[in-house]
């Protein structure tokens, strides 16, 4: 039983990494949003499983937030944004998809190596979870820096944040997890609203950040 519990947690976390990879090679915006929704669902499952494992019912709230907010509200909002703003559907990556994948593999390897150095003092679940969480974080950042499109970057950031939540829930008994996940949700909402409503739409024709950059101040 112990073994099975661990395996399920492990495979859910691993699934998150896998989905992160899937996001890396998406070149269509709507598909990207959908896959992000999948990641959010996986995250919700993972968090819920942790809640069950640690007998920490407050984590169910986090899971619920992840499910409702990230898997449903945000993807819907993003779909509307790309429709309303008429952003062309193709994502323009900065580096080729292949190289991005390659770098991604390197990042996962790096996070494994770094985590290997952690002594077994911590619970093995936590250790594995951390390695996966770190991978997700790094892949999220990679996504942010290899996408020109603001929506792509936001998804990268959210994926990064998923890694954080994974880590936070994996840390047994960590206080404030719920609060933090709420805070992050608000943050993401701000970003999305920033793109959608926060006057950027009024002043810039697209949310492609390179257009925004034209307004860099003087020196």
């Amino acid at each position, binding site marked *: 039983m112990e073994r099975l519990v661990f395996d399920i947690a492990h495979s859910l976390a691993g699934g998150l990494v896998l989905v992160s990879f899937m996001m890396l090679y998406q070149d269509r915006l709507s598909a990207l949003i959908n896959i992000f929704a999948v990641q959010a669902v996986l995250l919700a499952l993972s968090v819920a499983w942790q809640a069950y494992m640690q007998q920490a019912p407050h984590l169910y709230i986090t899971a619920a937030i992840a499910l409702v907010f990230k898997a449903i509200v945000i993807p819907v909002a993003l779909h509307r944004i790309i429709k309303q703003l008429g952003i062309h559907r193709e994502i323009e990556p*900065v580096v080729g998809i292949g190289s991005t994948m390659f770098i991604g593999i390197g*990042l996962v390897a*790096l*996070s494994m*190596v*770094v985590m290997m*150095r952690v002594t077994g003092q911590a619970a093995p679940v936590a250790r594995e979870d951390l390695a996966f969480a770190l991978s997700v974080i*790094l892949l999220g*950042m*990679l996504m*942010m*820096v290899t*996408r*020109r499109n603001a929506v792509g*970057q936001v998804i990268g950031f959210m994926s990064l944040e998923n890694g954080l939540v994974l880590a936070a829930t994996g840390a047994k008994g960590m206080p404030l997890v719920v609060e933090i996940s709420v805070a992050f949700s608000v943050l993401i909402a701000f970003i999305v609203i920033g793109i959608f409503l926060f006057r950027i739409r009024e002043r810039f024709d697209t949310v492609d*950040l*390179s257009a*925004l*950059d034209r307004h*860099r101040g003087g*020196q």
Partner: protein
Amino acid sequence: MTAVAMLMWVVAALLATAVLSVAFSRTAAVSHWVYSTCAVLCASALGLLLVHLLGSGASTSGLTLPLGLPWLGAHFRLDALATFFLIVVNLGGAASSVYALGYGRHESAPHRVLPFYAAFLAGMNLVVLADDAFAFLLCWEFMSLTSWALVMTQHREHENTRAAYIYLVMASFGTLTLLLAFGLLAGPDGHYGFAAMRSAVHTPAVSALVLVLVLLGAGSKAGLVPLHVWLPLAHPAAPSHVSALMSGVMTKVAVYGSVRIIFDLLGEPAWWWGMLVLFLGGISTVLGVIYALMQHDLKRLLAYHTVENIGIIYIGLGLALAFQTNAMSGAATLALTAALFHVFNHSLFKSLLFFGAGAVLTATGQRDMEQLGGLIHRMPYTSFAFLVGCVAISALPPLNGFVSEWLTFQAILQSTDLPQWGLKIMVPAVGGLLALSAALAAACFVKAFGVTFLGRPRSAAAMQAHEVDRYSLATMLGFSLLCLLAGILPGLVIDALAPVTMSLIGARMPVQSSIPWLSIIPITAGRSSYNGLLVFAFIAMSGALAAYVIHRFASRALRRAPAWDCGFPDADPATQYTAGSFAQPIRRVFGELAFRLREQLDLPAPGDIRPARFVATLGDRIWELMYLPVVGAVQFGAEQLNRVQFLTIRRYLNLVFLTLITLLLVLAIWP
């Protein structure tokens, strides 16, 4: 109350004057009051120091104030070396203040001068008094800062702001190198007190590094080539009484810094130290005077000439180091005395000359010698004082400049016994350079005096010049008298320097004041001796005799007539030799050595009536080879890095990301 405490009160009073001058900057008479106060304060400090010197033989007294580094306190100490340099500082300060009583009336923006002037005087006093690294550096930089503000007085002229900028950057460079030097001297435990540094033992490598850093730091303030570039820009930009202080006194404070560290704090010298110092001194003397010869701005000429004199001082210091390594304390004493004597002399005649230049500036509004001429008729007293200064600085007997150079030559002649080959080659070569610079200095001041004061006026301003006020004249004539006195009674000065050499080298020169006829005999009577008093008396007597005989027995008739000029009467004043043309033969001879000289002659074809044009441009090789590349490198770095200002957010994120990856990689491979 100890002497040092009284001096600190004087300094405090100076600082208070600075603050009060801000408060009363709207009062009309503030200028007068500030300068009078400064003069009184400096004079009382001077009197105090002289009494101290004569009374107690420059005994040492210290004082610690609860300022500065909290666990260390601010240490101040008055010893023989400090006494000597404080005399130089306060003599110059008192004279400048008296001079400024007259000169300062013409200042258009006194509120930009007065507070900084008083603070500058206080700063120079404090540097010499400071007895720990922090207090020293603080006062040192404070001195730079206040003088920077003074250079900035006429800030509306771009040239001045540029000069001030270069000045303060170089000063800051000097302070930072000195900071490194002190850091090394203080050792890992941070003993910043000079007493602790003195007793500490340093490895040869550390000592060598400190020496180099000190030469960079103090040398940049003193104006050693190649760190001199700021000096000829900044000194002339300030008001003339400040120029006098900067050239005549502040550079001496820099010399004080090097003497204090190299001779007092650093311990046993290595033989090549002397060589390094000699080399820098030697090139400074020659390059300084050659650059000076090429100037036609009177104040800039004087400023460049400071570089030469600083070179002479450092030659003396280098010789002293070389002798000291080889345990030739007699010769080392002679060389150090020569250097310190020159410090004193230069503070006298350089201040005097800047006062003179200031008087010319007041009278004509011109610093450009090409616009001057014939001032000897309109400003007789000024021109007399200036002439005395010129003779003194050209190292001609019987005035004081000659004595210190003579002593330096005597020291050079002691150096055949030096065992090191490097020094054997270096010392005579430096001797040659010194001889060359002495001759060129005379040429330089023939030009300076001849073009400015002699001949016919080259502009309306020069034609309408008038003699300056009494304060200025009194200061100039007083300093002329001092130049003469120090020249004809050098033995007194040498004896007064004995405590300094005793404390630094542990030996002193033979007592001079007991020698009959007041001669000076540096080593033995058989080797060399000089008697300025007699030479002066002889010249005066024989000149008077000749004049008397001729006037009495031959003729005294005199008729005024137009100048003959080989039969070309009534030529335009423009046909006179100018400053540029006067220097042309020397420019031809030494031009390629020191400058990138480009002479362009545009000669119209026959029948063409446009005027011929001759343009000589001088490029400063040191500026081009050493400073422009640095400027270029900074600009290049700024230009390249500046791209980072214009990245997209994604690229900035990329930077964060890469930093993260790098750090993680470091963690991964960390043992």
